[in-house]
Each structure stands twice: as structure tokens, then as C-alpha cells.
């Protein structure tokens, strides 16, 4: 069976290293983009099952990247995949947080620092849901 492919979009190399290592240890195939524009380019060129997306990125921020890719998916330009946003802080109000979550159209938000086991559980949950949707 093919391994699930995950794209980590994160500009902090240490976070990339820990998450990449933990994911590879569990059998995922991992690719990395260090800024928003590279993330868009990679996601439009390659097929992924899930994207881990930071918000504060050079180039385009995570909200924009998520919104653009979800639009691509809706309009059939790329195959759909889940987007799990990893953010270092909650925004200043619940209303703004709701607005950005809706606007970016991402599937879930997780807040840093997170436990690797929690992250992997969330990833597995999304991938299981995605598989169920396809079937």
C-alpha cells in the first residue's frame, strides 16, 4: 500500500526536524516547504494527502495559502487533501479566530506547542476521514 504523503509548511527548521522525524518514524512520506509560495507551488505540482501549515510564513501567510489551495480543490484544479493549520498563538478574539478559520477554509487548527502524539492522532483522524470520504 502507498504511504500517505504529507507536506510540512513551516519556516522553523527545528520544528520541521522534529515533526518530520516523528512522521517518518510512523511511516509517512514527508515533503517540506519553508515559505508560502513554495508551499503553493509544491501543492499544485505534487499530490499530497495532508498539509501541515504554519501561519506566520515568509511570502504568503498560512491563511492565504489555505484559502487559495482550497479554492483550487473546489474548482477541480488539484486533488483534494486536508489542511491542518499549526499556529503559534490564538488570535486576539474568538470572533476573529472564527472568521480566519472560515476564511482560510482549513480543516483544523492546532496550537503550538503541541505534543507529537496529539499531532499524529489528529493526522490519522483526518486521513481516516478522507479515506472514508473517497470510498
Amino acid at each position: 500500500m502507498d504511504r500517505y504523503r504529507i507536506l510540512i509548511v513551516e519556516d522553523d527548521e527545528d520544528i520541521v526536524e522534529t515533526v518530520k522525524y516523528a512522521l517518518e518514524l510512523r511511516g509517512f512520506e514527508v515533503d517540506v516547504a519553508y515559505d508560502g509560495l513554495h508551499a503553493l507551488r509544491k501543492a499544485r505540482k505534487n499530490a499530497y494527502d495532508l498539509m501541515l501549515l504554519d501561519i506566520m510564513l515568509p511570502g504568503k501567510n498560512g491563511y492565504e495559502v489555505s484559502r487559495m489551495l482550497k479554492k483550487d480543490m473546489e474548482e477541480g484544479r488539484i486533488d483534494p487533501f486536508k489542511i491542518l493549520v499549526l499556529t503559534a498563538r490564538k488570535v486576539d478574539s474568538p470572533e476573529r479566530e472564527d472568521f480566519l478559520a472560515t476564511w482560510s477554509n482549513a480543516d483544523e487548527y492546532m496550537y503550538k506547542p503541541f505534543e507529537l502524539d496529539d499531532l499524529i492522532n489528529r493526522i490519522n483522524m483526518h486521513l481516516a476521514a478522507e479515506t472514508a470520504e473517497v470510498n
Partner: protein
Amino acid sequence: MASDTVISIGSGSEYMASIIDSSPVPLIALDMSLRIIMFNRAARELTGFEMADVTGCRISTLVGFEDTRRIIRDLRDGGKSSDDHMAKFRKSGGGEVPVRLKVNPVMSRGGELAGAIILAMDLTELRELQSKLLEAERVAAITETAISVNHEINNPLCSILGYTQLILMDKDSLDPDVVRKLEGIEKQIIRIQEIAERLGRINRPVLKEYVGGSRMLDMEHSCVEEAADE
């Protein structure tokens, strides 16, 4: 008719005195000895002094030493109108009111300095607004700093927690004492995370005393949950 109105008020000088007394701008007239010879209604309302309280008194009854010196300097300035300056009027019941003063020399027909008329602007409301603005800026600065610290701490915390958990993945092959220490690190990371989380929620900064006379944020009382909309 207008002329009837003037006649009904009285003579020309009474009419002028009435206009000055009715001016919404506090006006104080001084003679050459800086004694108060006129103190209009707005000035009385501003300070709480009655005409009889101040008439014949020197201006230093109303303002402090430095402000009195400034008024004298303005008058000695070749008879030219002075720039505005900030001062404080004493109030009759105690306390002070912040004012902006304009000291205008009054010249005699012969062109000599005969006294002065002082126009005062009440700055109480302006000072209150400035104080509120400063407080709002202080709150914004503390809140922005707290949010920035929250953000900047969470990224390195994420790496430290990640590395710690990566090492702990092989805990069976590690010395139990090392495992215990790593788990201690993990626990403290979670603690810092909770502090950072609270920092990010600060919206009404409250300070409390710290050692050595300095102050620190009272984290417990600085995060006010907004009431949910009905």
C-alpha cells in the same frame, strides 16, 4: 430694535462690562501691580472664587510662583501679546484646575502699559482625554508585548517539546534517571505553554507590586473574559 436693547441694558460702559462678564471665556483683568480688577463669570465658575474673594488681590492668589513670573515676563516683553502658556488656577475649595493662559497687555491711550487681560482656557476635559489616551496606549503596548511574547515563545517551545518527545520515544533504551529528567523538562514546557497562553489572553493589564519597588503584571486579574453575546 437693537438700540432699544442697548438702552435697556444701561450705559455704554455698563454694557461693555456686561459683555465681558457674560463671555464664555474666563477673563481676568489686572492692573499694573498685577492686582485683579475684573474677574468675569466664567472665571468665577472655573475657580469657584467670587468677585469679592479676589478683587484687589494679586494674581499670585490664583496661580503659583512660576506662573506669576511668567505673567510678569509676558508683560515686560515690550508690550507684545505673549504666546499661550500652561498653568494651574487654584480653586476656592482647594485643588487646582489646569488652564492655558494668554496674557494680553492693555495699553493706555498714550501707548504705555496699563495692565493686562488674561484669557484662560479650561484644560480639565483635555487633560482627562489625554490621560485616557495614555492609559489606552499603555494597555495597547502591554497587550501587544504580551501577544508578541506569547507568539515568540510558542515556536521555540514547540521545538523543545518536539525534541524532548523524540528522545523519549526511545525511553526503553534510556537510563531511567535521564527519562525522569526529560519528563521533568516536558512538564516544565507545558507549564511555560500555559503561561504563554495566559499572556496571549491579556486584555486588561493590571499591575502588582514586585520586589524592589518595581511592578509586574498580575496575570490572574489581567485576563478578562468577554461576556458572551446574548
